[in-house]
């Protein structure tokens, strides 16, 4: 198979890769913030349950979680497996990444000096206003480097979707490699991921620069 044919075929799978990437970010970024707030709850029962869930999600392989979400409902409740594999993939990814993002948000929120809360309180800001206007914008600035790290990992993790035979770039690459007994598709996949991540790093670098208008 000519290299160009190979690349074109794998590009078809790239759409699937992008779908996982963007949908996971779309759901896990807000979900992570919610989980971070639950984790910081003053009610011990809520914070302990959240802490336990995070530890399970971080302490078990994403591949296992993917399989659990995709096939668990069938084995547990006899629910037929949906033909659209994107749904279980995004659910598993969004939940897993929300756990990681939650810990990053938490570290950012915890790093905020108490004086910012006190100044806002004395000025009469409500709790919600304080968080949305004063705390969160500064937290986002502080956690951007760790976020970039996690997002870069997400790009590479999309390849795990092949375990439940969701068609993305790596799935196609593997298929070609098997049928052609060639190592080339893996090289192409490697280049794809690398370029994708170079773009991610570039964009995040721009965002960081844009938020760099004040000192912490």
């Amino acid at each position, binding site marked *: 198979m000519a290299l160009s044919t190979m690349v074109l075929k794998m590009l078809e799978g790239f759409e699937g890769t992008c779908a996982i990437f963007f949908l996971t970010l779309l759901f896990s970024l807000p979900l992570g913030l919610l989980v971070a707030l639950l984790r910081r709850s003053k009610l011990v029962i809520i914070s302990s349950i959240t802490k336990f869930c995070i530890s399970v999600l971080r302490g078990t392989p994403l591949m296992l979680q993917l399989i659990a979400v995709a096939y668990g409902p069938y084995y547990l409740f006899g629910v037929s497996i949906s033909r659209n594999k994107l749904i279980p993939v995004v659910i598993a990814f969004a939940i897993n990444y929300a756990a990681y993002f939650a810990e990053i948000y938490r570290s950012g929120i915890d790093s905020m*000096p108490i*004086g*910012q809360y*006190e*100044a*806002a*309180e*004395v*000025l*009469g*800001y409500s709790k919600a*206003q304080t968080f949305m*206007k*004063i705390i969160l*914008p*500064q937290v986002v*600035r502080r956690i951007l480097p760790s976020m970039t790290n996690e997002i870069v990992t997400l790009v590479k993790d999309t390849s795990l979707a092949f375990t439940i035979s969701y068609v993305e770039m790596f799935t196609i690459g593997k298929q070609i490699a098997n049928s052609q007994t060639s190592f080339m598709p893996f090289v192409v996949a490697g280049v794809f991921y690398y370029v994708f991540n170079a773009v991610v790093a570039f964009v995040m670098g721009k965002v960081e620069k844009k938020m760099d*208008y*004040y*000192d*912490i």
Partner: protein
Amino acid sequence: MSILSMQNIEKSFGKHQVLKDISFSVDEGEVVSIIGPSGSGKSTLLRCATFLETIDSGVIAYNDKPVTSMQNGKCVYVKDLNEFRKCFGLVFQNFNLFPHYTVLKNMMDAPVSVLGRDKEEVRAECMELLKKMGLEDRAEFYPCQLSGGQQQRVSIVRALAMKPQILFFDEPTSALDPELTGEVLKVIKELAEENMTMVIVTHEMQFARAVSDRVIFMDGGVIVEQGAPEEVFGNTENERTKQFLANYNR
């Protein structure tokens, strides 16, 4: 009429009692300085007055309206503290400006989004205040682009933008070097001349003497002595006050 009244205030952190049956009040137009050694409870008293700390017992009132009341031996706060927060402003030792907001936004945001006032009207007032401070060319600067003295002056005008009846200062110059201290003290002096009601916790004895109508000396969680600055600084009878001031005049 007293703007602030604090009666029989008790406050403990764990087993350590920081405020022991403190009573004092501040009248309109009065400038009160609170002096005393570190750990004497001065800052805690201010933090209780501004609801950053809750008191264990006693009564706080603004304009004779009680904020707290004793019910079955427990101190209970009213529900709507924001009604009372409008009465006062607080200037912190380390400014606590919002670093992601410009000077102008630092000042304007609370009047607009907390008090719901008209944006353009607030902007005009804030620019007027900045002009008075000689900071109008800094309106679009971020706090990190200002000197410490400028930052503290901005935090003073941020508090003034809320039009408080009384302004509290918690060691406003303690984070500044001696050269920058002067510009902040000058602003406070000017406010005193305009009859702004103020309570100032400070270690600047000369300043406290010059600016205050009344000086309160605190030690070990109690008010040891209070009176006109000439009395406290000039010819105090109290041994503890004498000892404390002697260390400053060395």
